[in-house]
């Protein structure tokens, strides 16, 4: 954790001291240094560990593929070539009715949790109301490009939230998230969306939420 991260956590706790979790982390570091011989793999049998990991991966793939076909699934996104995984979930700062389906107050902030995404450096998104109205989220500007995720993720969450505000009327929105290997403009995204042709370098994930 970089110094400012620890400082932020202390400020949020209201206490200028390390958290219990920080103490625990230090203890593990101490143990790793003073008693490395005592450090055991979580599994006594590495071969068994490998088999367990492999079998988990085998289970992951079919689930991920089903999710690509049924994008309402929350936990998994699409799997591209190799080990690339694209996924996100939506949250708002003041959900009005639990977490599923997501309903947000019209003055709430909408934010994107991209935890688990790998292999796609860029992300763009827009929301579309059931009446067809489109609201662009990223890129924010007309001439802009997809966001470069490496610069904008905080523990897997995008550091830019969307204030719903006046741009969003009441009702349901489908949010279309475009993961790509290259930065895309709004025009690029529109073309791919309309044609339905994404190629190997772009994946579309959609989620939904409602504005109350």
């Amino acid at each position: 954790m970089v110094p400012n991260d620890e400082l932020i956590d202390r400020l949020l706790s209201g206490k200028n001291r390390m958290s219990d979790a920080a103490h625990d982390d230090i203890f593990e570091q101490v143990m790793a240094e003073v008693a490395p011989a005592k450090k055991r793999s979580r599994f006594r049998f590495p071969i068994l560990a490998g088999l367990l990991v492999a079998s988990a991966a085998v289970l992951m793939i079919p689930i991920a593929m089903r999710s690509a076909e049924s994008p309402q699934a929350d936990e998994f996104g699409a799997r591209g070539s190799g080990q690339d995984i694209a996924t996100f979930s939506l949250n708002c700062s003041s959900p009005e009715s639990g977490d599923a389906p997501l309903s947000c107050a019209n003055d709430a902030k909408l934010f994107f949790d991209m935890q688990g995404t790998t292999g796609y450096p860029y992300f763009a998104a827009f929301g579309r109301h059931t009446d067809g109205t489109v609201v662009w989220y990223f890129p924010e500007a007309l001439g802009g490009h997809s966001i470069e995720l490496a610069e904008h993720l905080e523990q897997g969450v995008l550091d830019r939230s969307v204030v719903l505000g006046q741009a969003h009327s009441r009702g349901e929105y489908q949010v279309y998230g475009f993961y790509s290997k290259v930065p895309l403009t709004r025009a690029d995204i529109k073309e791919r969306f309309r044609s339905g042709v994404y190629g190997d370098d772009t994946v579309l994930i959609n989620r939904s939420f409602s504005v109350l």
Partner: protein
Amino acid sequence: MPVFDNKRPLLEAFRRGEREAMGTVYKRFVGDVETLTRRGFTQSARRIGGARIDEQAELVQETFVRAFADRARSSFDGLRPYRPYLLRITRNLMIDRLRSANGTQGQGVGNIDDLLENGTEFSTIPEIEENLHWAQLSAATKDFKAGLDAKTQEIVRLRFDEEMSQDAVSAQLGCTRRRVRSVEALIRTELRVHLEKLGLLDV
């Protein structure tokens, strides 16, 4: 009560290097070691200032690495009190770093040699806010938190103040763990941006 008093099994397990025993000793003293690194001390009229946040963790870790090293641990006879022994390691590490008095004002925990001789608990020494920068940051953070909606404030309180796990918070509030994690990450980012805009945090 000293940690090893009337606890021969604990002492033996500690000397053997058993993890649970080292954990017991660690938890008993880590707060004091941290306090010393954070507040600093005086010695022979020389002021050794408190360490920066990133250095505090290093000093705590190095203290216990030295104290828990094989030779140090296995040769500890259990007759001497452990706390002064441990804090002297911390003291020496801090002196080695030659902290100046510029970072903090005041006396820290006070004269370290007297404190170790007397066995004074640091918790009994009033902690006057010596760090003006921390005071400013705290005030700005309080304003920031006051502007959050009630549910987010509750997540912040349970995660950061009560130090509950994400699972426990999600169970208490009836939301998913993913949501708790998302809110947590967003709040950290927004507070950082808030403090940077106020010029209280280096970009």
